[in-house]
């Protein structure tokens, strides 16, 4: 007897913007509270923390050690040029640092917030001129390229600055996520609410961390993001990162019909909605789907508890990267939830009408954007999800 297709599909609810706004203003979490949600979010963030640690180290290494290198062949090796490391790299026994670069480029391209504003300003141009002057005296190739394409090297320096800034941002996030896992292992966290609160506290604590970037050219130090620029962790890097990677993202082949000429992609970059909170997890591992790289990296470092749980779900390890992507999306809703909580203009408990109104407007703006996102992942469906072979046994 054939299976009935409806048995093989499921989907969570899609709460309206008003409901999301209510949850935000009431201090409730967006993600439903359930034991499996806690386990998924904590464990996926633990593996994400390990991966972010590698991404962060590599991005900072690239920005500092491969700065203006026209042929950065060994940029993913973190300075370790041993034959064993090169062999592992060629054998693809490695972290997909390309994904980190993909996120960096998304940030650079969407260009929002204080970092982008600084990269377009006069002080940055002056730093660039000084660096290029020094660099071109020693590098004949760049000396030829620079007069021919005067915007080329400044753009490379912008890229390096974004790379470094993202490296610094992920350094903080990596530590935060690993601390979160540690706290959960010690029994300090047992609910989605506690997770969101933990992340919010971590973000608030790091909010004012300075973002700076200095390079050395021919032994001479140059500031690209100097301390006096006043760039800070939360406003100038975290918020643009959330905007570029969580919300806007980029349409890539395989997930959406990609015909920009037919206006299937909005010509207004601000209206983009292809980020991590909007992406469809199902095409994971398809050709040209960048998040696949991240899911593969997280799979390499998956905590045993979550790994075991995935083996009990659906196709076991056969679709593990899709399941990681789904859990990751739940975790990213928690991070977004924490970021919104931490950036409300006024305390939620305020009694002042004007402040409440400002909070409401802030929550409404977020809710309106999030209502189009993959909010169907917020419901707790996993507890009711049997292993597929059991679900369709005897029907196929």
């Amino acid at each position: 007897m054939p299976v009935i297709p409806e048995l093989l599909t499921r989907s969570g609810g899609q709460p309206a913007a008003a409901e999301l706004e209510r949850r935000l203003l009431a201090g409730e979490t967006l993600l439903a509270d359930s034991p499996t949600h806690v386990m998924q979010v904590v464990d996926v963030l633990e593996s994400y923390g390990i991966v972010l640690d590698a991404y962060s180290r590599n991005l900072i290494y690239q920005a500092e050690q491969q700065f203006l290198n026209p042929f950065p062949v060994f940029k993913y090796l973190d300075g370790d040029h041993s034959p064993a490391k090169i062999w592992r790299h060629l054998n693809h026994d490695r972290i997909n640092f390309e994904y980190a670069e993909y996120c960096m480029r998304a940030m650079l391209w969407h260009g929002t917030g204080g970092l982008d504003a600084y990269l377009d300003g006069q002080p940055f141009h002056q730093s660039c001129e000084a660096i290029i002057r020094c660099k071109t005296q020693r590098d004949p190739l760049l000396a030829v390229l620079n007069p021919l394409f005067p915007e080329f090297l400044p753009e490379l320096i912008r890229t390096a600055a974004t790379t470094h800034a993202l490296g610094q941002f992920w350094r903080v996030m990596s530590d935060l996520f690993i601390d979160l896992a540690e706290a959960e292992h010690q029994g300090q966290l047992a609910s989605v609410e506690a997770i969101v609160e933990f992340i919010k506290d971590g973000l608030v604590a790091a909010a004012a961390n300075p973002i700076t970037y200095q390079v050395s050219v021919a032994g001479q130090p140059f500031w690209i993001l100097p301390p006096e620029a006043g760039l800070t962790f939360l406003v100038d890097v975290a918020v643009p990162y959330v905007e570029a990677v969580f919300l806007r993202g980029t349409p890539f082949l395989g997930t959406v019909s990609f015909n920009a000429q037919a206006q299937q992609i909005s010509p207004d970059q601000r209206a983009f909605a292809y980020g991590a909170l909007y992406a469809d997890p199902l095409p994971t591992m398809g050709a040209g789907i960048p998040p696949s790289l991240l899911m593969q990296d997280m799979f390499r470092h998956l905590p045993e508890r979550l790994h075991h749980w995935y083996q009990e779900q659906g196709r076991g390890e056969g679709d593990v990267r899709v399941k990681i992507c789904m859990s990751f999306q739940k975790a990213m809703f928690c991070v977004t939830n924490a970021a919104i909580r931490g950036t409300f203009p006024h305390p939620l408990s305020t009694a002042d009408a004007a402040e409440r109104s400002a909070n409401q407007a802030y929550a409404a703006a977020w809710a309106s954007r999030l209502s189009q996102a993959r909010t169907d992942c917020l419901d707790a469906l996993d507890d009711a999800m049997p292993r597929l072979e059991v679900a369709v046994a005897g029907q196929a």
Partner: protein
Amino acid sequence: MLSLLLLIPFLGSLLLVLWPGQPAPGLMRKVAILVLCLQVAWSGAVLLAFDPLQGGLQLQETLPWIQGIGLTYSLAIDGLSLPLVLINGALSLVAVICTRDISQRPRVYFALLLLISAAVNGAFLAQNLLLFLLFYELELIPLWLLISVWGGAGKAMAATKFLIFTAVSGILILATFLALAVLRGSVDFSFLPVTSEQLGLSSQLSLLAMLLVGFGIKVPLVPFHSWLADAHTQASTPVSVLLAGVLLKLGTYGILRFGLGLFPEAWAVMAPWLAIWAAVSVLYGSLAAIAQRDMKRMVAYSSVGHMGSILLAAAAATPVSLLGAEFQMVSHGLISALLFLLVGIVYRKTGTRDLEVLRGLLNPERGLPFTGTLMILGVMASAGMPGMSGFISEFLVFRGAMSPFPTATLLCMVGSGLTAVYFLLLVNRVFFGRLAITPTAPDPLRHSRLDILLAPVAARETIPATALAMAVVVMGVVPALLGTLSESTTTAMARIPAIVQALASQGVG
């Protein structure tokens, strides 16, 4: 030697029926696989004993049976029947291997499959008209039972339709053979060509027309095709594999062996009309396939189109076109069996074959990516992409038929081009895009977010399809493997009408 090709599956079938007690379905399947492995191995032995350079009949075996009615147990093999015997063994084995989870009367099911395999071998090897007819009819009832007992929801209607059509086919063929004997005035049912000396042209034309309708039902050719799509839709996957891969070939084999072989003179007269009939059949089959929304019906109608080109090749009766017909029979057998196997996998996993429902099955982790890959290979082969068997067969048919019947050939080429249209529709709808297995819901946003939980396809489930896909590619890359087997025979067959015409034009006959 050839008798063993009949005896092995016959005895296997008998063994299954007489097996004591209530054996487990798995055991029955293993026994059937073992028997068919023996049959395939013995077909291989026949292949080794066969001399491809010799155009005539080989390994002949003759025993008088009922001489009073002209029935002789006479078997032989040539380059026309040997590839079909080989493909019969292989596809019967595939059909048994891909039968899983059979709970209803497994003993009878496997016995009937073996019986069909034996009967088909008998039909391909028989060198006596009555013996051929005996085997031709013998596969009818088992197949009817396989559809009506183990078929889908509308099996009764489809099986009855199949029975009526093919019974009429058998009656027409029997009537032709009997009429031939009566008109010849002897009870000689051997395969000797009829000449105008023995029989007037108008009688020959009448008999050939009856024969063509008889075998045209089996092929099937338009307008006798309507049983096929229903039978395929209701039959289980293994039965569809056998039906498309082997049983339809009985029709084309009959046309080539008896239409062309028995009535060469009448054939020469009728050939231009047959070419037009072929073109109509090819175009109709292809256009009907475009309109289908059931994957299985689409593949079934593609069979109507592709089998039509064999009639074109037979009508042209040039050495190249007849070799093309042989290639097309084998190639269509492999490709359609492959496609039915894959459609079967899709149906087993998703519960539907509806082109309006299925989407994105190539999804790498949640879909059926390997099945999709093989399907793309299969439809490319069916559409005649170079490097696969479909290209060789269609090229030979069109090359051979272009000179005698340019218009009909061009029309058939258009029909062949339409293969790409309907199979691209199939692949594009079912395998590309976002994974979905439900009709588009009123809320498209919600529909686009459904989480799909299909059971994975185990590697062992795709082994038969992978083997067929490899055979399709090997035949496309090294066509000489089949070409050397059949070329002498098909060239010799192409000479028959020419000789007769030459004799007639010189006034000797």
